[in-house]
């Protein structure tokens, strides 16, 4: 009933009609429409990390027998806003020995892809910014650019330890990207398309009555694929138990130590945007995106999608406050000798299943 998708598209149609009626060429109306949509997306993606930071502090507080931020606004909800404002006004320090241009560019290169990646994500019925036919590969390709931002940050801050942190971070992101991409392949094999909207739509319906036809409920392939994707995504976003690059007690300096003020906020924004992106992808690929239990029921599809995404985000937060940190070589060994073989085996199972099914 509260489906936002159709309502919004009707609104945009009337808007462009009204604008064309006032003598603006069709191209102009199309540009206005698109710029509003892009503006809304960018605003949403920059607000989501604020919510996630607040959620992380609250969740970690309750796990550690304390209350978390309480006094900036009721239950501390404006705490992250206050942090953001504080970071903006902090002094912007550029170390002397560092390469100025790279130092300034690094946070932008690390943060911009996070926004672009949200283009093909299906927030609900009809709420897809752009229904790209190559949605999945597009997200992995664009999120690869952040690794270059990490390396620029490591090299741009001029000191030995952050360079070491930068190399470790990039090595980790690159090596965990492979199992992450391979773990999504079974989903593509089953549903034949790469557009996230198409995959989400294909997962509607029920299996003999009660079980929703989500990919995670496929007997063996679904669970393995989801687990590998989840683990690899945690490693991609450099979060515990894979947060070697910012390991305080070892290197004392991660790759973003020399960054202060707004630049550090951008790195922070990128990390949480990628956590949200990975959860949104997991929700769309494995939990049937906007499809609700009682399809077409009261709860609109975009609310279902956000609910599933935040459930998976809670997993990310939960990992952070209960797991210790893996050692670097064990981390690499885990990726190459455990995750990769299993994702390849999973593709083989999926191939077999597709063969038997058709």
């Amino acid at each position, binding site marked *: 009933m509260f489906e936002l998708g159709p309502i919004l598209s009707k609104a945009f149609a009337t808007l462009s009609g009204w604008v064309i009626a006032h003598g603006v060429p069709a191209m102009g109306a199309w540009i206005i429409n698109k710029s509003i949509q892009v503006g809304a997306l960018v605003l949403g993606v920059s607000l989501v990390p604020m919510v996630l930071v607040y959620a992380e502090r609250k969740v970690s507080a309750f796990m550690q027998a304390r209350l978390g931020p309480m006094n900036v606004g009721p239950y501390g909800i404006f705490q992250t806003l206050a942090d953001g404002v504080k970071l903006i006004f902090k002094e912007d320090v550029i170390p002397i020995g560092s390469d100025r241009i790279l130092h300034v560019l690094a946070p932008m290169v690390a943060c911009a892809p996070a926004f672009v990646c949200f283009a093909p994500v299906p927030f609900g019925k009809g709420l897809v910014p752009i229904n790209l036919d*190559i949605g999945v590969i597009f997200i992995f*390709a664009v999120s*690869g650019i952040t690794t270059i931002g990490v390396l620029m940050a490591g090299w741009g801050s001029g000191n030995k330890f952050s360079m070491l942190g930068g190399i470790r971070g*990039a090595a980790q992101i690159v090596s965990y990207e492979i199992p992450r991409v391979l773990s999504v392949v079974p989903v593509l094999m089953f549903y034949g398309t790469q557009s996230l909207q198409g995959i989400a739509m294909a997962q509607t319906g029920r299996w003999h009555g009660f079980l929703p036809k989500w990919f995670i409920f496929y007997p063996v392939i679904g669970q393995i694929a989801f687990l590998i994707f989840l683990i690899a995504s945690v490693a991609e976003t450099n979060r515990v138990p894979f947060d070697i690059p910012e390991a305080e007690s070892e290197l004392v300096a991660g790759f973003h130590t020399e960054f202060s003020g707004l630049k550090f906020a951008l790195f922070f924004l990128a990390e949480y945007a990628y956590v949200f992106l990975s959860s949104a992808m997991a929700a769309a690929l494995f939990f049937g995106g906007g499809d609700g239990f009682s399809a077409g029921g009261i709860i609109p599809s975009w609310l279902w999608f956000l609910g599933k995404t935040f459930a998976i985000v809670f997993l990310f937060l939960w990992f952070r406050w209960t797991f210790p940190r893996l050692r670097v070589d064990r981390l690499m060994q885990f990726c190459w000798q455990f995750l990769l073989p299993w994702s390849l085996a999973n593709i083989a199972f999926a191939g077999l299943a597709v063969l038997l099914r058709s």
Partner: protein
Amino acid sequence: MIEQWAPIVIFGAMSALLIGLSLVVVTARSVFRGAIALAAALGVAAGLFALLGADFVAAGQLLIYVGGIMIIMLFVIMLSQRPLAKLDRQANDQWLWAALFSLAVTCGLIVQFRAVYRGVFFNPEAAPTSASIGRLLLGDMIVPFEAVSLVLLAALVGAVYFGLGKEES
């Protein structure tokens, strides 16, 4: 619905950016900056592929070139940079001859291309290509597809062999 002048404007902007970035790659004082410019150039090239309707290849280029090769190249640059190497000049002494030679090659090519392929026009409707590329790779191009996997294997073994170096192996 998109007017006729839109593609030419986008193409003009992208090609200017591409040429600018590649000049930076070739003349940058610090190799690291050159590498970052190359990564940006490859990104713009991916944009050009998308403009020409090759969406799968554009994503592939970003994934493999920018996400893979450039990262390894940056690793090697960081590992092999001596602390005070920032100051040495990057161009060797026969750069003038190189400039003349490459100018000659470019002008020859441009003259050649202008004469022959003048009149073919651009059609913007882009159909999704990943399905047809998949069929192509596993259909007609199956032999090169398998051969390339052998080449990749050889490259992997070679890289590991050289990477290990004498002492550690």
